[in-house]
């Protein structure tokens, strides 16, 4: 059948289509569109590195320039995934080194990256521009030295929240003098104990990077150095300070204040370790331009926080510690009418008694005062159904709602009832809700509400909740858009899992730890569903050394066209019968 347009025209049209979803849709129209599309796709996002293999990716998309990969499941952030579980990027980089010499961007999240891999990256891709390592681990500053030394056109190096072993060398000085291409540098996760050599190298690097717009430094960069750095980079759009403390000295303050006022493009501020409150006013001149403020390391009192925040009338995102207290949040609600995202972190999560006055009142105030609020992460110690009703009524536009009441199974502190009705109101009113994290005392009823109403929900996190299988069944059978479900310490068992086996193929993954899933059920699921990888993670030894009805510690189930993985450590068992037989 003749094409209506020649290939080149279609390719040109496709080049305007950026989103993965749309690209996928295009590729399903007909065989020739599939072919044209796959040759001109430049960017790919793989949400689970074990869902597909490098070979499959390369075979279908031979001309990629940008690859994003995610490895470990989200609960790895909270130490629930044992060391050595997997998520190695090395096989991907090896394969891409051969297949994509023109690769420009690599973005990894929760993956294990070695120094050798980084060296391979730095030498395989001549035009490499962007490296983002988000919550990754396994590499040292030596690996970073390779990247610095060999990537001639590096634009972005972002190590956000990665665990990097600092070998004390001076990798920053490995950027050649001729390297002036840096646009973004995020080393905020690096150590707090630098030598003057390191500081000096950073200053020189910043000084010769005229395109630098995002700079996030680590705790080791002292306040005294900040003014100089800012003067060398007055066009910064995003800044992460180092330690924000110094001997109180009028010179240091005025120098700093002057430097900040020279940075008229600043829109985002973060860092603020070890804050001495007297220095906070140094940033006041640029507050009105700020859209993002991360004070989640600033252990200062509410009054100091409020003085700063109330100057930021254009604030869209605020991350802060619970030192802000209810009163501070009320002030926030008055001043920052453009607020879209609020995250309140606990200053002392393990304290037996509350150390600050941060309650449900604070969040209610923000929900009342901030009409554009759509994303919430809130750690506190008490809540009520009423407060949840109010929040739901005030902000039906919420898309992400994560509430963490610190003590598991805490009821409504006034009525002593479960918080089922409150969360029910959230899912019923907030029709666009895509992400939800539950906490507090919850019965199966909350899951009934979620299954009935949360039709756009994509990610759900559950802990210490529910009565039995019915709860899980409600979620799996009702939540049509569900992609990621992570559960810990809930009495959910085999029945719901097996009854909804088919649903699991429509999701990216399901994590269940410290629940009531038996080894027997895992085996059955693995056998019945060949396109699911069912992995049992149990450090107590082989699951068949215990009665089959004994609950497994963790089961991690994800859809995959790659088959069971071959890099599993000793404490992970796949339920793939064939593989198990082969390896036994």
């Amino acid at each position, binding site marked *: 059948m003749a094409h209506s347009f020649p290939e080149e025209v279609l390719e040109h049209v496709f080049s305007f289509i950026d989103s993965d979803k749309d690209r996928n849709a295009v590729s399903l129209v007909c065989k020739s569109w599939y072919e044209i599309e796959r040759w001109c796709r430049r960017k790919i996002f793989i949400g689970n590195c074990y869902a597909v293999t490098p070979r499959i990716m390369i075979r279908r998309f031979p001309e990629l320039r940008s690859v994003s990969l995610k490895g470990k499941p989200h609960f790895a952030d909270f130490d629930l995934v044992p060391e050595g579980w997997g998520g190695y990027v090395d096989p991907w980089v090896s394969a891409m080194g051969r297949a994509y010499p023109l690769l420009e961007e690599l973005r990894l999240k929760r993956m294990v990256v070695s120094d050798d891999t980084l060296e391979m990256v730095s030498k395989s891709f001549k035009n490499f521009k962007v490296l983002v390592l988000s919550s990754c681990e396994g590499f040292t500053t030596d690996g970073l030295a390779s990247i610095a030394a060999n990537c001639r056109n590096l634009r972005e190096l972002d190590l956000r*929240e990665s665990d990097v072993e600092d070998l004390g060398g001076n990798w920053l000085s490995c950027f050649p003098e001729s390297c002036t291409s840096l646009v973004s540098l995020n080393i905020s996760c690096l150590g707090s104990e630098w030598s003057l050599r390191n500081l000096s190298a950073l200053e020189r690097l910043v000084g010769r990077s005229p395109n630098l717009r995002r700079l996030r430094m680590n705790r080791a960069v002292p306040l*005294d150095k900040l003014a100089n750095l800012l003067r060398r980079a007055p066009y910064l759009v995003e800044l992460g300070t180092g330690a924000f403390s110094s001997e109180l000295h009028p010179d240091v303050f005025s120098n700093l204040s002057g430097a900040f006022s020279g940075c008229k493009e600043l829109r985002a501020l973060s860092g603020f370790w070890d804050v001495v409150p007297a220095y906070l006013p140094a940033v006041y001149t640029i507050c009105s331009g700020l859209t993002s403020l991360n004070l*989640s390391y600033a252990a200062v009192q509410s009054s100091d926080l409020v003085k700063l925040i109330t100057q930021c009338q254009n604030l869209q995102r605020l991350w802060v510690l619970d030192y802000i207290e209810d009163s501070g949040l009320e002030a926030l609600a008055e001043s920052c009418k453009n607020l879209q995202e609020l995250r309140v972190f606990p200053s002392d999560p393990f304290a*037996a008694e509350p150390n600050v006055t941060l309650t449900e009142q604070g969040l209610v105030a923000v929900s009342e005062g901030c009409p554009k609020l759509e994303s919430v992460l809130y750690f506190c110690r008490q809540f009520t159904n009423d407060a949840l009703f109010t929040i739901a009524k005030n902000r039906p536009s919420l898309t992400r709602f994560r509430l*963490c009441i610190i003590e598991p199974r805490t009821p409504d502190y006034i009525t002593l009832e479960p918080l089922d009705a409150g969360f029910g109101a959230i899912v019923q009113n907030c029709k666009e809700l895509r992400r939800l994290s539950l906490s507090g005392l919850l019965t199966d009823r909350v899951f009934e509400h979620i299954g009935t109403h949360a039709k756009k929900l994509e990610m759900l996190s559950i802990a210490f909740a529910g009565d039995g*299988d019915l709860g899980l069944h409600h979620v799996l059978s009702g939540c049509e858009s569900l992609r990621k479900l992570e559960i810990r310490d809930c*009495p959910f068992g085999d029945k719901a899992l097996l009854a909804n086996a088919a649903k699991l193929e429509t999701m990216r993954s399901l994590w269940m730890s410290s629940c009531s899933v038996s080894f027997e059920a895992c085996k059955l699921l693995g056998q019945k569903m060949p396109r699911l990888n069912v992995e049992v993670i149990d450090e107590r030894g082989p699951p068949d050394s215990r009665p089959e009805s004994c609950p497994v510690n963790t089961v991690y189930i994800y859809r995959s066209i790659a088959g069971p993985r071959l890099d599993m450590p000793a404490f992970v068992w796949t339920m793939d019968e064939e593989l198990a037989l082969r390896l036994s």
Partner: protein
Amino acid sequence: MERTDTYERHHLKATELRLGLPGTDEPQKQSPATASIKSNKRALPESAKDCSSNNNSCASDVKDGDCACAPSSKAQVVGWPPVRSYRKNCFQQKKNEPDVSGMYIKVSMDGAPYLRKIDLKVYKSYPELLTALENMFRFTIGEYSEKEGYNGSEYVPTYEDKDSDWMLVGDVPWDMFTSSCKRLRIMKGSEARGLGCV
């Protein structure tokens, strides 16, 4: 479900607060399905503190535990509350403040009639230390550069390390410096020139 009840009974038994000493047996309570709804009371402040100072051992106990194991103190559960580890470390730093012993070392300056003593623990970075020295002895130290040491200054800060070698202050990470520094000497420029240019 029967299976669930047994599982819950195991866990609840281990975690419920008792009036007796730990280890003594209590008469078995009947735990119906509603047991899971009973909200566990907070642990006593003492046990919470104990556990938080032995953070790691508590966590590893739970990880290595078998079917019937549960955290012996209710205060610490692995991965709960869901706070990233780099956020936790931030605040322990503040708490570790009560550390009584200082790290006093002698500081000599060429040409000065007597020595001084400073507590290295008071400073958290090189710039802080150098500013303090400048104030104490009323002189200025130049800009540090990797190649030339301290540029354009009459005086250069040096220190004697564990091997009794005289080293230029600033080359190694701060914590390495504080752990190996035995004494400081502010050397006069002429002598120091050899040291500064490596």
